[in-house]
């Protein structure tokens, strides 16, 4: 019943007017933003872009295949960064999610807002920015990358997991509570089994995303393929850039396939 469409419901003239006004506002805002944004744009560069593109395109091909062996160690580092970072993210996100979920949070007034803030903060800051910070603090290397991936993953995993916790079936929880189980036992017997599929799905999904992200973290010095990319870009070695991009693409496709398989097996 509810999804019956309102195809034929005519809008009242006032609603129509409001709608047009809304569109007008959007267009005006767009034009204004465009002007502000392009105020300092040097249009000569823009018109020159097709030539630049053709030039870069020419230099990029063919990719330098002989560069491949040199990419194996960075690839391994990238995979490690993604996997260990996901692991770190999971370890940190699980308690945060339980603190953030309304039905498991021990203190709705104090701990829950803190947990929610951690989630928002982690989500709004991209892993590249985390890496930028951590490289400045810890120095370049895998460790900064792993922590960056982990910190960014907290928000993602925490948010999806706490939503899953809030969606658990209250009747199953009540039934276990009614046996005289302690809160930790209720967690173990009623809540955890219900969120397990969501948990694995979210983790594998995030791992897949983290593979993509860790491939570029090297741009700011956090190790892995991105480091090679940065070096090749700095020396304008375009055939190497192409090779690196191909490796990244292959890895991403592979990890997407793995994650789809694993998620299919769980659900």
């Amino acid at each position, binding site marked *: 019943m509810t999804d019956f469409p309102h195809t034929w419901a005519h809008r009242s003239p006032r609603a129509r007017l409001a709608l047009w006004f809304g569109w007008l506002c959007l267009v005006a805002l767009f034009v204004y933003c465009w002007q502000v944004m392009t105020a300092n744009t040097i249009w000569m560069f823009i018109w020159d872009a097709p030539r630049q593109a053709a030039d870069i395109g020419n230099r990029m091909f063919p990719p330098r295949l002989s560069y491949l062996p040199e990419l194996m160690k960075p690839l391994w580092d990238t995979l490690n960064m993604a996997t260990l970072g996901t692991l770190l993210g999971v370890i940190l996100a699980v308690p945060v999610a339980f603190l953030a979920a309304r039905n498991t949070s021990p203190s709705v007034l104090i701990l829950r807002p803190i947990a929610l803030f951690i989630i928002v903060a982690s989500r709004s800051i991209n892993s590249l920015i985390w890496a930028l910070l951590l490289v400045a603090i810890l120095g370049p290397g895998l460790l900064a990358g792993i922590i960056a991936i982990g910190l960014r993953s907290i928000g993602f995993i925490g948010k999806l997991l706490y939503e899953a916790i809030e969606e658990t079936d209250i009747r199953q929880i009540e*039934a276990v509570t009614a046996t*005289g189980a302690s809160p930790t*036992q209720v967690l173990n017997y009623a809540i955890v089994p219900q969120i397990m*599929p969501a948990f694995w799905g979210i983790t594998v999904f995030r791992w897949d995303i983290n593979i993509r992200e860790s491939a570029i973290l090297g741009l700011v010095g956090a190790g892995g393929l991105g480091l090679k990319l940065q070096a090749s870009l700095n020396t304008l070695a375009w055939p190497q850039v192409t090779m690196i991009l191909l490796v990244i693409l292959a890895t991403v496709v592979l990890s997407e396939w793995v994650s789809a398989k694993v998620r299919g097996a769980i659900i």
Partner: protein
Amino acid sequence: MLELAALTKTYKTGDKALSDVSLTVPKGQVVGLIGPSGAGKSTLIRCINRLVEPSSGKIILSGRELSGLGPRTLRRERRRIGMIFQEYALVERLTVMENVLSGRLGYVSFWQSFTRRFPAGDIERAYRLLDRVGLMEHADKRADALSGGQRQRVGIARALSQEPELLLVDEPTASLDPKTSRQIMRLLIEICAERGLPAIVNIHDVPLAQQFMQRIIGLRAGSVVFDGPPEDLTETVLTTIYGAEDWTAMRKDGEADQVAEAEAVASLAMISA
């Protein structure tokens, strides 16, 4: 023995679900709780093990007062009260055995329950109960792989594994077909008789209540309006409980159940013959 004294519950929303309910359930008695939808049947049952916190009044189970207990002692007292739910409320993704063993959670340490290493006695009891409800070979299945009637049997086994002194049963058959309903009711009554276990059974279906219960309590708008043996449940009484129209509608439903009833009675006759 369970004693309720002046039990009152007002929800935060302002609904007065129970007002001044007092009653006593002696050992071994199976009480049917009937009343129209929204009368407060579930609220009454849930107040007893304090899944719902009563606003005022006393709950006394075998001499010990349950109202006003702290969380730790409340958990200890809850072990003595088994509960069976309308939609089974099994933990779907755990095995049947784990569901039955979860009735023992109040008795074991967190570590024992976490590693699933329950004492031998608990496991033996769980198998015995599963055998009693006819699910011996399903012990290792996941609960969501069972049919409705089988799930309710697991629910019964879980409640019994607590070795309770009282059973609270909230509409055990509302999600089941008429025939399975009767089988489940029969099983429940037999088990209560075997153990001398008192029970409060919340039930929508008046004919079913009349057939199986030793005593019936009628609830209307949060107050007890009838308390007596099923034979006294005359049409006038039913009208006071349900209001005229509801009751006639329900009797039609009752007639529709006649077929199922005949089947169930026939099977019973065969067993006793």
